[in-house]
């Protein structure tokens, strides 16, 4: 297969060895080359991916999602909810209004959770950075796992009939008819919105990416080969749960975490453990739980976090065995 990123590697090599004049085969050269190449590749993929998904998103409004999923039960609607979650934006501050909006439209609790689990887990920025750093295969595994996790987790919550753990006021709120819907937009207007999306997201996360790549680059250049294989390899069964627990409080830095994880994989951290770590960083975040506490009772939050954490740990073991 032709490496479409070859030109970026060529530029990174030119800059490292010729412009900066760093001798090849040194720790410094390895670090600098890694940083330049990764930063370019990440920003190219980020821009393309965010643009594409933001464009698609102009067709999928929360109002439409509510109409599609209202009153629908069954596994395939969990899948639909989860898939819509992959292309929906997720600012944790919107999770409560979205939650109430879904419940009010008669979307079953379990289906709502399928959406709520997958939405933060699979988002275009994380996918772009994953693709740029860990390659297509690991990214595909991550995305599919994220969808399966949403379908499965939501389904389980539906089966357990946990409606009583939703705060009572949620059922009393009436959602009005919004007057601002994206209807009849021209292709140019949609492209404009998509471009705004690129500017907005890249503007917010570039600093985390640069910091993450720099730390990853230093680790890549200077850490001894195979160091992590020795301490956190596949035969260390505690590595996956520890990685998942470490991931929970790290939400806002996920874009920066990915390039660091890339360098950890280079030093022998297994793929399954790495993906489990990244999934726990995105799927369960403290700020989101605090916000969701306004509509969910503690029992349901605890069940939600446990289901996600256990599934993520399972996913980690699974891919450590398979890959």
């Amino acid at each position: 297969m032709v490496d479409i990123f070859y030109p970026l590697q060529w530029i990174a090599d030119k800059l490292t060895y010729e412009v900066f004049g760093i001798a090849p085969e040194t720790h410094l050269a390895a670090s600098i080359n890694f940083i330049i190449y990764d930063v370019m590749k990440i920003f190219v993929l980020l821009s393309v991916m965010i643009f594409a998904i933001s464009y698609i998103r102009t067709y999928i409004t929360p109002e439409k999602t509510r109409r599609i999923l209202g009153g629908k039960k069954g596994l395939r609607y969990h899948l639909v909810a989860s898939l819509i979650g992959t292309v929906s934006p997720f600012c944790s501050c919107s999770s409560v209004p979205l939650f109430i909006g879904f419940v009010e439209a008669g979307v079953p609790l379990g289906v709502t959770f399928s959406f709520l689990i997958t939405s933060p887990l699979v988002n275009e920025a994380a996918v772009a950075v994953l693709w740029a750093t860990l390659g297509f295969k690991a990214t595909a595994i991550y995305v599919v796992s994220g969808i399966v996790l949403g379908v499965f987790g939501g389904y389980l919550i539906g089966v357990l009939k946990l409606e009583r753990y939703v705060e009572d006021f949620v059922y009393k709120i009436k959602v009005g008819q919004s007057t601002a819907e994206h209807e009849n937009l021209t292709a140019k207007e949609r492209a404009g919105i998509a471009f705004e999306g690129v500017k907005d997201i890249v503007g917010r996360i570039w600093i985390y990416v640069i910091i993450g790549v720099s730390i990853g680059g230093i680790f890549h250049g200077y850490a001894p080969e195979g160091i992590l294989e020795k301490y956190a390899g596949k035969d260390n069964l505690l590595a996956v749960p520890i990685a998942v627990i470490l991931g929970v409080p790290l939400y806002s830095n996920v874009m920066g975490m990915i390039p660091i994880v890339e360098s950890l994989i280079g030093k022998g951290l297994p793929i399954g453990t790495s993906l489990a770590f990244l999934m726990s960083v995105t799927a369960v975040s403290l700020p989101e739980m605090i916000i969701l506490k306004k509509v969910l009772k503690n029992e349901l939050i605890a069940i939600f976090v446990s289901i996600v954490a256990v599934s993520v740990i399972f996913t980690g073991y699974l891919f450590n065995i398979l890959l």
Partner: protein
Amino acid sequence: MKIEILGTGCPKCKKTKEAVEKVLKENGVEAEVVKVEDFETILNYGVMVTPAVVIDGEVKLAGKVPDEKEVLKWIA
């Protein structure tokens, strides 16, 4: 004119309020700007993604920070 900024206190909501107030000031337009953080009121407007801007009871935008050109169009 009454402008309501709907949002539950995220950074984007603050940015939205700042953007609206800046445009109002630059153009010398008098308006009452209030921040609405109560879920019930937000949802009564049919808004599920914040921040949102409501002018005289009409939802103008939901789910993103408006740019200044948009704000100008609404208040003109």
